């Protein structure tokens, strides 16, 4: 197949499908072992400097915020990051721990362009931004999940997105149309927050699944945080609810309000003031540092974080939840 055009940016996470198969054969246990541990244990065990890491869904929705804060707390650095996010990735950018980005969207949605992203990229602290559309990054994970080296798409064509990506354009040998080939993305570590999981890592989510199915199948290590730890009988009673089976999972962390100040469908709504606090404080370097001091470094763990937030605000968030009616 002749390559008509190639993106000029590097593949910041090179991959080998056969090696991934071997990894899945040897390094991922099929045994039902208890994987329940704390945030500290999970992050120190599986996240390492310079690893390629991603978070799902994003910073205001079903996001592993407690794990995200723990990554900063432990001083992990030089991360290569799969960049689809809101608060979580802006916190990482402001903390100065991101080296390279496969960026799709890092924004504050209604509050616009995030200051952490702007400072980190405009100052050159982030060495490389490789551009992908939202669908493209998800399909890259889908390719890895399928165990194939690329997927063709009609996204990205004709634009600077293709040019500043690592995709390639070819002519489809079956029908003759031009397609962009998206290279598979195999993450070293993925962080996903779910509604319920058992101790082995069988996971259930409510509401949209975002890209949890793709990411959970496209990573070497998967850390799950869950609002609730449920008995395995509950999993076996409703097997149709399992979106992530246990053998994909390396760690299970019990994290009630794990997505706060973001929301968790049907459990709690988002805390608008909590989100605005970051929007305002992150406008200056000093403000961002003060925020991180207050909410990350001056609390030892997620329990202490929740105490700092206080029962009243958590109850308010529950009151704002989406209801099934």
């Amino acid at each position: 197949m002749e390559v008509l055009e190639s993106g000029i940016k590097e593949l910041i996470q090179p991959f080998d499908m056969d090696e991934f198969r071997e990894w899945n054969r040897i390094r991922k246990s099929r045994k039902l072992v208890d994987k329940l541990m704390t945030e500290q244990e999970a992050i120190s065990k599986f996240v390492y400097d310079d690893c390629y890491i991603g978070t799902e869904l994003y910073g205001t929705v079903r996001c592993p915020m407690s794990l995200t804060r723990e990554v900063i707390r432990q001083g992990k650095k030089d991360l290569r990051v799969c960049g689809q996010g809101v608060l979580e990735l802006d916190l990482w950018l402001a903390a100065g721990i991101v080296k390279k980005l496969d960026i799709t969207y890092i924004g504050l949605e209604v509050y616009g362009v995030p200051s952490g992203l702007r400072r980190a990229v405009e100052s050159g602290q982030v060495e490389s931004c490789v551009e992908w559309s939202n669908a493209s990054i998800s399909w890259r994970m889908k390719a890895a999940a399928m165990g194939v080296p690329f997927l063709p798409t009609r996204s990205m064509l004709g634009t600077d997105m293709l040019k500043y990506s690592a995709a390639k354009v070819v002519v489809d040998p079956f029908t003759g149309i031009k397609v962009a080939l998206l290279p598979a993305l195999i993450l070293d570590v993925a962080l996903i927050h779910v509604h319920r999981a058992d101790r082995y890592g069988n996971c259930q989510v409510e509401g949209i699944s975002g890209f949890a199915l793709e990411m959970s199948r496209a990573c070497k290590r998967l850390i799950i945080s869950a609002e609730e730890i449920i008995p395995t009988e509950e999993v076996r009673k409703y097997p149709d609810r399992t979106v992530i089976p246990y053998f994909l999972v390396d760690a299970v962390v019990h994290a009630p309000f794990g997505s706060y100040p973001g929301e968790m469908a049907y459990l709690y709504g988002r805390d608008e003031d909590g989100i605005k606090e970051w929007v305002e404080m992150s406008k200056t370097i000093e403000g961002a540092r003060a925020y991180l001091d207050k909410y990350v470094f001056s609390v030892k763990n997620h329990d202490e974080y929740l105490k700092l937030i206080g029962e009243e605000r958590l109850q308010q968030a529950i009151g704002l939840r989406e209801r099934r009616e």
Partner: protein
Amino acid sequence: MIDQTYSKTELMICVAARLFEDGATCFIGTGIPMLAAMLAAKTTAPNLVPVFEFGGTGAILEELPRAVGEARTFHKGISALGICDTMETAQRGFIDYGFLGGAQIDPFGNLNSVTIGDHEHPKARLPGSGGGNDVGSHCWQTIAIMQHDARRFVPKVDFLTTPGFLSGPGAREAAGLPPGTGPIAVVSTLALMDFHPASCRMRLKGLHPGITVEEVIVNTGFELLMPEQVAMNEPPSEEELHLLRTEIDPMRFYI
């Protein structure tokens, strides 16, 4: 009695809302497109099928989504699936319209939401494509909603994020984008624009109340084509303003 004086943003939202076709599937981007979709759903397009990129389809838009994945994007919806499903639905031709925003737009309707200035050394880093590029690639027809000034309406976007007509007639097809797709309208704070069918260049269609052709020209950084007759857009109705202020954006995120 509602205050009938309205802002440019309120007017823009109303003009955009009237473009939604009842019963059509519409991909809704973050921000102003969400307000326009809600207003349309509450007025002229009650059977609108909103599609949000992270998986929400067919939501009843009772409260303004502040993010494209929050529960409001599948509130009383038809389905709550995932991003691959919605994007694949668009790629196989099921999504009629896409409503988009951006930081810059050019005469061919190309949008930029990645960087101002050079990509490798940007003056300003913007959030990135998000689903913008996908929506502009796969939806049958796209509509952009933008603030209107010469910094945003530029001869050439600094970074071509979301494809409009690219470099002109035939360019989308030549690049491999699905035939028969492309931008059909731009709604700004000053006017409604469409695209000349032969040249694919942006053309003035209708002026907002109180706005002159000269004002639009001064605030456009490229030569805007002129129609034989310039239409006048209707001001917001009392009902539209009431809905916008009391039901759609009571927290005043945007208006």
